[in-house]
């Protein structure tokens, strides 16, 4: 395998391929930074162009875009509070407060460095453990995925601290939202009110655009009136030292592991890994204390960004070894493979190993390129994205609307996005952590679909959830998490800790 990899690097190392990787990554970072535009969109657009190219260069371009968008999204998340892509929604939680304090360069630097680190770690993990990753992707059965979903749901409580009632209500709202549509098992319409547009459910992309795009704009319109000199004019654009990053190894290590593992499991959604790793790191963090998360701590940027770039390794391995896509972009890349005369699936490794290794090599090269391009472009991004809000907001509204439109090539998702924008804005004013709505909407289908499918496969036998050792472990994890949550919910927050969440501690 090592020789195969070296061969792959040799192939990808040709000037054309390197140039295309560079161009693709730059394009990816740009596309990622624009709210509403996403990686699948960019890849689809380039599909017809790539038909005229050879396979390797074509995929160099696509993988560059794929990797770039994972980082690009965090730029607008940090500078504008509207994530450019769903994968970076979590980064805004700590990225934006940090930028508001005048440390935009620091935040962007952390995002870039941890994205690169996560991408590299995810790549190493994926390549070293290809059989393991492929095994996880293939043999994860509905009960396993359901249990992971439930564990994730309990972790969502981490975002509900401060008001259990509001946090849980948010989760339940998200779960209800995800129930709309045709039921997967019984083919029954739920909450569709006779509209065919609702039969496939409330378009999730629209919910994201609404809550993280429109709601933020509605809320921050107040900034257009104040017209105050925001502290975000970070003239020095200080970037973090490598030591600052490596010191926080728990954040990026946990993020990378989550990204790699969850990215590999199809149907869970690579973006969910960012939230899960954020929750885990937050809950188990000693210094800075959990309450500091959300005020602008570097760990809050490091872990989701490491996670979302690690998912590229996790999603690419099943795509190459099994022909099973982990997310939207890999699904399109699979389609592109067919167009280029390759047949994805178990035989790809056997028939066209050079393609497999070439793509893996491309992933690593693109990740490294991403680092240099982004670090070089931080200044430019800060300049563009810190224009006056009353110039930026109209453009953001247009981008977000068209982004919602393009998810189904119809205006319906745009209406949905507007509705959720209003709901999200109103709820946020009342102190609801609207993040929980999104997480409920992500986890709802995962849990319900897989629980019911698992039961259907076992003939209604609930014991299927403890049938194998991995499942027993997962049940144990869930029980542990549950007791922890209940205990911390019942215990009041000690006043001493609250004083510790001053900006100084976050500046290291």
């Amino acid at each position, binding site marked *: 395998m090592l020789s195969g990899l070296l061969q792959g690097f040799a192939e990808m190392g040709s000037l054309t391929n390197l140039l295309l990787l560079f161009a693709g990554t730059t394009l990816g970072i740009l596309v990622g930074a624009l709210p509403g535009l996403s990686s*699948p969109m960019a890849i689809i657009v380039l599909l017809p162009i790539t038909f005229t190219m050879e396979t390797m260069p074509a995929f160099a371009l696509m993988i560059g875009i794929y990797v770039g968008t994972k980082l690009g999204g965090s730029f607008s998340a940090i500078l504008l509070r509207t994530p450019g892509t769903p994968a970076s929604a979590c980064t805004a939680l700590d990225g934006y407060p940090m930028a508001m304090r005048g440390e935009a360069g620091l935040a962007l630097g952390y995002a870039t460095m941890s994205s690169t680190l996560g991408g590299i770690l995810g790549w190493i993990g994926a390549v070293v453990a290809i059989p393991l990753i492929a095994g996880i992707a293939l043999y994860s059965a509905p009960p396993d995925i359901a249990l992971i979903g439930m564990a994730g749901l309990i972790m969502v409580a981490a975002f509900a601290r401060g008001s259990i009632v509001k946090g849980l209500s948010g989760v339940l709202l998200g779960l209800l939202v995800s129930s709309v549509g045709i039921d997967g098992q019984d083919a029954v319409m739920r909450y569709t009110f006779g509209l065919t547009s609702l039969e496939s459910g409330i378009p999730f992309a629209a919910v994201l655009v609404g809550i993280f795009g429109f709601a933020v704009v509605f809320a921050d319109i107040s900034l257009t009136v104040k017209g105050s000199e925001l502290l975000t004019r970070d003239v020095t654009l200080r970037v973090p030292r490598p030591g600052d990053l490596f010191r926080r190894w728990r954040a990026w290590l946990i993020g990378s592991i989550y990204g790699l593992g969850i990215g590999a499991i199809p149907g869970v959604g690579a973006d969910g890994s960012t939230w899960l790793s954020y929750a885990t790191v937050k809950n188990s963090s000693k210094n800075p204390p959990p309450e500091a998360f959300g005020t602008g701590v570097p760990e809050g940027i490091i872990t989701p960004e490491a996670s979302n770039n690690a998912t590229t390794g996790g999603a690419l391995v099943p795509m190459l070894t099994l022909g099973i896509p982990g997310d939207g972009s890999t699904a399109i890349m699979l389609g592109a493979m067919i167009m280029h005369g390759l047949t994805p699936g178990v035989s790809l490794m056997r028939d066209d190993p050079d393609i497999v290794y070439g793509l893996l090599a491309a992933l690593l090269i693109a990740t490294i390129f991403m680092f240099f391009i982004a670090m070089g472009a931080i200044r430019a991004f800060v300049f563009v994205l810190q224009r006056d809000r009353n110039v930026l907001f109209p453009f953001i509204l247009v981008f977000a609307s068209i982004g919602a439109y393009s998810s189904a090539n119809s205006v319906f998702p745009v209406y949905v996005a507007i509705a959720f924008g209003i709901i999200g804005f109103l709820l946020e004013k009342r102190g609801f952590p609207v993040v929980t709505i999104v997480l409920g909407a992500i986890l709802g289908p995962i849990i319900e679909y897989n629980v019911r499918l698992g039961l259907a496969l076992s003939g209604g036998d609930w014991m299927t959830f403890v049938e194998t050792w991995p499942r027993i472990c997962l049940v144990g994890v869930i029980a542990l998490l549950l007791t922890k949550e209940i205990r911390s919910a019942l215990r009041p927050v000690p006043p001493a800790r609250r004083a510790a969440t001053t900006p100084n501690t976050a500046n290291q």
Partner: protein
Amino acid sequence: MKLSTLTRTLAATTLGLTLSLGAAAAQEFPDDTIRLIVPYKPGGGSDSIGRAFAAALEKVSGQPVVVENIPGSAGINGMLALKKAVPDGYTLAINGTTDVTAPIAFRENPPYELSDFSCAGAVFNTPVWMLAHKDNAYSDLGDFLEAAKANPGTLTMGITGKISATDFVASTVRGVNEADFRIVSFGGGAPLKKAILANQVDAGVIISPVLLKEVEAGDLTVLAAVGDMQGITYPPARETPHIRNWGAEIDVALVRGILMPAGVPADVQAKLESLVTEALESDTFGDFAQTFGFAPYQESAEDFCGRMPQEVTDLKTVLSEYLER
């Protein structure tokens, strides 16, 4: 000139120009971008077929062909968009007959009627087939049915969704043979494909040629076919026994073809039909079909459209006879 005279002259000139341009356009169809609606998400099987066809059509027509994905509701959203499109021949859709007729057959208030559409020809005719993992050691459907009789209530057969083409096949086989196995719906082709590969179901019913590579590699066995397998690129699979050997007298295939909104002028329709045939015979599409696993299937627009009314009746019959209600 007075203003009103000027306006009138301008209007008349514009009108004349538009009319003459319009007339000229009809004669040189196509002379503008063609839109091909794919009623499914990008990256899926139907999407790949649609994009390959679009590339081939672009070559033979000389005009750009752009694919537009309008997913949702098992293809209904895309068909509704097609229904609303202007019938000038520049908006097409690719879909399978079963996916078009199923809403009409099963819903009390169907979202559209067959009369809302016209056809331009078929592209693929891919029968449904039944697969099992090699570890289960079934050599054909008979072995599976025997195992089901020996262990009533334990075996599982996966389908893509309740009240779908695959559901018909599974339910009919079960009903006709009075076998006791569980039919499990996966709510989509992709999860079912993964479950078959991972041997999480004892057998699965899915549209061919999905999982063909795994069949060729020997990881999966084909238990039975529900239609004509002669077009498949893997010769041993052409000999697959039909499920009528086990009493199920139905033919269920997904015939994919090109559809248009009703009301397209006859000459444009004829031109499109010949373009579709040309695209099918082109090398671009032929190469794609090789990788895809099935030979292209040519059928006239009339025959393709003619399948559907009969299919609606057939679907209703199968539904009442064999499906759980």
